[in-house]
């Protein structure tokens, strides 16, 4: 396992190799790839901001956001800001995250997590799936499908409209 | 290459027990909670061995935050850390003589 989503281990369909049909290019090399029309993913360091990506939303099937360490939480804000700006493609978190951050990643709008082998071997997929379900509900509105926040559930219990 | 820092000697090796948090000291054969029983490394080879044992104990999830503390022996021959911080760590809170190792083991 080194790629997983909310359902578990996921087969990799993207490649960072030149000439691959579904290619993830480094942000610094995006210009040439953007000009083509093959399915395109871009991998960004967490210093890249939404306005630099927004003009290319339609062209980018995947945006991979790097987490240089699990304690650097910038990627969570970038993902949320991208979703907030209307990005609907695949969001991938890349780096040594820990299982306890899986629920956060999903809530912030990530679809999948790509782990370095060392982390993946130490934290098997069952741990990730369990960690994603650690809380029955939390207080914030989530990008994760299905779950309703505590605020939304309270509103529903009052007979209010659930959005 | 950086020059290795000279080991201050003599020294004892202390750590915190992972599950209990209590300060523990390396002996010839394991760990003790009693600072009076700490093995005193008089030479670099012994100190290096203590550090290696501590690394193993960390990997076995027995202790955390292990490090060498340079000491002076008191009149009774017992190790007393040279730095005041480590003296408090070995004794307990200074305003509560009824608590910590000072109370349990009579460490002065």
């Amino acid at each position, binding site marked *: 396992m080194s790629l997983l989503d909310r359902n578990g281990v996921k087969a990799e369909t993207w490649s960072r190799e030149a000439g691959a049909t579904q290619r993830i290019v480094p942000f610094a090399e995006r210009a040439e790839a953007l000009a083509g029309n093959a399915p395109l993913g871009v991998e960004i360091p967490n210093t890249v901001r939404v306005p630099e990506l927004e003009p290319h939303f339609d062209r980018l099937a995947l945006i991979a956001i790097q987490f240089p360490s699990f304690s650097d939480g910038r990627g969570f804000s970038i993902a949320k800001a991208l979703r*907030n700006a209307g990005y609907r493609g695949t969001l991938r978190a890349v780096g040594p995250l820990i299982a306890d951050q899986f629920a956060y990643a999903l809530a912030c709008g990530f679809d999948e997590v790509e782990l370095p082998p060392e982390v993946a071997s*130490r934290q098997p997929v069952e741990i990730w799936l369990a960690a994603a379900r650690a809380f029955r509900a939390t207080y914030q509105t989530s990008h994760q499908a299905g779950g309703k926040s505590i605020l939304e559930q309270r509103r529903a219990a009052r007979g209010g409209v659930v959005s | 290459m950086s020059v290795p820092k000279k080991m201050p000697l003599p020294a004892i090796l202390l750590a915190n027990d992972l599950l209990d948090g209590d300060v523990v000291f390396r002996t010839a054969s394991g760990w003790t909670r009693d600072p009076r029983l700490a093995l005193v490394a008089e030479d670099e080879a012994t100190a290096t061995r203590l550090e290696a044992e501590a690394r193993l104990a960390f990997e076995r999830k027995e202790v955390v935050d292990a490090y060498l503390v340079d000491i002076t022996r008191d009149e009774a021959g017992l190790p007393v850390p040279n730095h005041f911080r480590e003296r408090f760590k070995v004794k307990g809170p200074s305003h509560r003589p009824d608590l910590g190792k000072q109370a349990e083991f009579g460490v002065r």
Partner: protein
Amino acid sequence: MYRYDEFDEAFVRDRVAQFADQMKRRLDGSLTDDEFKPLRLKNGLYLQLHAYMLRIAIPYGMLSSRQLRQLALIGEKFDRGYGHFTTRQNLQFNWPKLRDVPEILGLLADVEMHAIQTSGNCIRNVTADQFAGVAADEIEDPRPVAELIRQWSSVHPEFDYLPRKFKIAVTGAPHDRAAIAAHDIGIGIVRNAAGEVGYRILVGGGLGRTPMIGKAVREFLPKADLLAYLEAILRVYNLEGRRDNKYKARVKILVHEIGIEEFRARVEAEFAKLDGPTINADPAEVARIAAYFAPPTYEKLPAVSAAHEAAKRANPAFAAWADINTFPHREPGYAAVTISLKGIGEAPGDATSAQMRAVADLADRYSFSEIRVTHAQNLVLAHVRQGDLFALWQKLGEAGLAEANVGLITDIIACPGLDYCALATARSIPIAQSVAKRFADLDRQRDIGPLNVKISGCINACGHHHVGHIGILGLEKRGAESYQITLGGDATENAAIGEIIGPGIGADEVPDAIERLVDVYLARRNAGETFIEAVRRLGLQPFKAAFTGEAGHVAA
């Protein structure tokens, strides 16, 4: 006070189970020590000098008697029979074992408590005015908004791995008792020219290595927009706050480096883009929370209790305590009582399990079963009938809790310092003890009047020394403890950072040095002028002269 519903209950139970699992994974090796550390810190668990320390959240300082009894029980069963109330209105236990922490967290959950986010690089326990709902100058009770923020900030998916810790404080009154200007975000409840109630938002305050007073990022924020606006501030901070140097990672540094205008522009731009309705609590939710903070059922009482006045006349010691330790209640015939945890010679903020139970019993009997913790490390019974004050004072005396010194020179704030803390560079508690003993005489304390002495055992400033009228900072100097004295700090709406008045001095010289500063004040004060007012009028020079004139020899 707030009570958990089924969702809050499920949430804290899930958190306990999550921590138990994290501990198990630490032991089986699927989590490394480096990975486990922030997880335990976010449950309040530190590794200190002698043992672990567990910091329990007391949201905005509010406790029920039932909760306080549970804390007493935990103190007896898992600690050494006492706890330490902190400057962030929390409670710390100094001796728990990691193996027991899941069970302790379960006992906390039993009484609607937790230790969530009392440490770590996340949004910390929100604090508020200890006289919320009591103070006559209050525009609106700050507790409902504090509770709303507690819920919103709990396990926030975007903001649990910030560059550094993030502290929020709320005050509902113009006189700031919550030190909001010393927080990452300070929220003041204000009324605008149109008479609407909203929030004035300060950002970038904080103490520590680089003390800063918060700056206004928004003069008036409509109440409904609060959470979205906080989210905008936090997002700007999470993305742009420095991560290259832990000492420059607080939001105060970002605000300082880019300037408040640029920071404001970025926040407002982010705020404009946010989908407010999915973030902000709807009015029905706000009303649901606010209802828990409705005033208790007060009796109709005369504004002045004849029995209380008679008791004061008959017993001067009681009269002194009643004058010093009570705060005017907006409800006629009631008073808010501050219980000093600063007995002369005691460790500031410490209370034994027996004392916790005694206070819980007194809260049941005299104050609607409610207790509050102050950032000055004292406790408050907020709604006591004036006619009950004498009986309360007697019972407090039996528990060793009737020290009459609130706001006076012996009501010292002190962090645990090197007697417990792994980060400390010097001890704090023995300094507090020696200064308190020097000024133990109550007539002298009253003559000196309001004076805040605040002591920190390291530059992280948990003892708030920067905003003490007199601040004491413990450092290491040439292998010994050394204390740096600052003067002129203020934690209120007149917030100011104290200035260093001379070279560091030894522990045994501190009481003399404080006495020399106080003597300058006593000799030169105008009628009715407090210590801090005199410092502002006179400037530091006369105090510096008195301090260094005689302390000079130790600086050599």
